[in-house]
């Protein structure tokens, strides 16, 4: 009986450690995203605020200027600055959790049917105009940490990119996000 109790306590303690570790990784990701958002806000505040307009030129000019400013401010940015190895590992675990049972076939079918895009993008690249955006299956999105408005998870094949939609720029990317 005493032995059983000891084993149970040990198992619970390990599970607890795991939860704490996962929470720390998610908190780290959230902080890195918040830091990026703060940087973007500082840069965007230097530009006229983008409001609804009848001029597509104004919209594109805002997008391009913001992207340029972000590129300059993050000129040393490298893949993995936000998707660090521990965060990437956690994301792979989370996408793995999403893809269980019937979900797996359904998610793969949704991805196949949504005009999958094969191209290489780097951190700081703009998402090319004219290339369709693959929809991100909701079941995956619901398993990943929430993002603030203006940032989105996008898939390029098995690569997950963190896309700033206002600047239309790749903030970070991680390979082999999906099994």
């Amino acid at each position, binding site marked *: 009986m005493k032995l059983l109790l000891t084993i149970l306590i040990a198992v619970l303690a390990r599970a607890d450690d795991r939860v704490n570790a996962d929470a720390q990784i998610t908190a780290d990701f959230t902080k890195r995203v918040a830091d990026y958002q703060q940087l973007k806000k500082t840069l965007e505040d230097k530009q006229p605020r983008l409001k609804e307009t009848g001029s597509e030129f104004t919209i594109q000019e805002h997008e391009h200027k913001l992207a340029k400013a972000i590129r300059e401010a993050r000129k040393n940015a490298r893949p993995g600055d936000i998707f660090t190895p521990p965060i990437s590992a956690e994301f792979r675990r989370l996408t793995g959790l999403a893809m269980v049972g019937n979900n797996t076939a359904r998610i793969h079918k949704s991805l196949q049917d949504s005009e999958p895009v094969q191209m290489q993008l780097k951190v700081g690249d703009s998402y090319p105009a004219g290339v369709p955006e693959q929809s991100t299956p909701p079941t995956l*999105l619901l398993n990943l940490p929430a993002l603030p408005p203006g940032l989105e998870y996008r898939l390029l094949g098995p690569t997950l990119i963190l896309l700033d*939609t206002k600047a239309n720029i790749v903030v970070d990317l991680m390979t082999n996000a999906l099994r």
Partner: protein
Amino acid sequence: MRFAKYVLICATALTAADTGPLPLIPKSVRFAVIGDNGTGGKEQYDIGMQMEKLRETTAFDFVLMNGDDIYGGKSDSELKKKFDLPYATLLTAGVKFYATLGNHDNPNERFYKPFNMNEKRYYNFKNGNVEFFALDSTYMDGPQIDWLTTSLQGSTAAWKICFFHHPLYSDGKFHGPDLDLRTRLEPVFMKNGVNLVFTGHEHFYERLKPQNGIYYFIEGSSGELREHNLKQSPSVGKGFDTDRTFMVVEIAGDDLYFEAVSRTGDVVDSGKFARQTAVH
């Protein structure tokens, strides 16, 4: 169980009867529906002209856009060619266009004033006894699903209509239905009394037989066309995949009338639905 009851009670109302021209009942809600339109090609202009022509008799007030509003480049001149000019007469007459984002759209199109998105990826608006919910199906994240659920629950409109790009049901050979999106959205629609859904993405017209008590239309051939892409299936109510189309809809009280019109002005489908009686 609740869903089953809902479906059962709806079943009697879920038949589309051919009705001929729209009845044009005073004070009814009238609108057009287009999808996958923004090519800038001659066919898009032809559809624009047919819309103008039909507006002379039906006087529809606004247009729903099911996404892929602007294909390819998005400069000022491209937008002029792919949106402003094909619908110039309608825009000048004050017809409002309500856009949703397709997978070929840049999310920043939400700032383009003539799209009436109010800077939002997803939004709602009301007209008469109808409330419309424009969704961004390219990025259906948790906050959007929460917003939709809350907005539907708070809606007092008799008719609740959702429109977005990717179809939950489709008999297209090229794409087919988005099953993951269906898994997440359909329960929200069923639980909160959505009556009708318009989508695009597939480049043809399809009226599906009602699915779990909800009417579904695909209108994705107002510019693009994927000929002979509609397969034979028991779920097809009516399909048309040999030319471009748009729809005109009239809602009067508990009745909805619709017409799908081709680029040559032929009515390729028409009918009347009664509003489902939701049981919650």
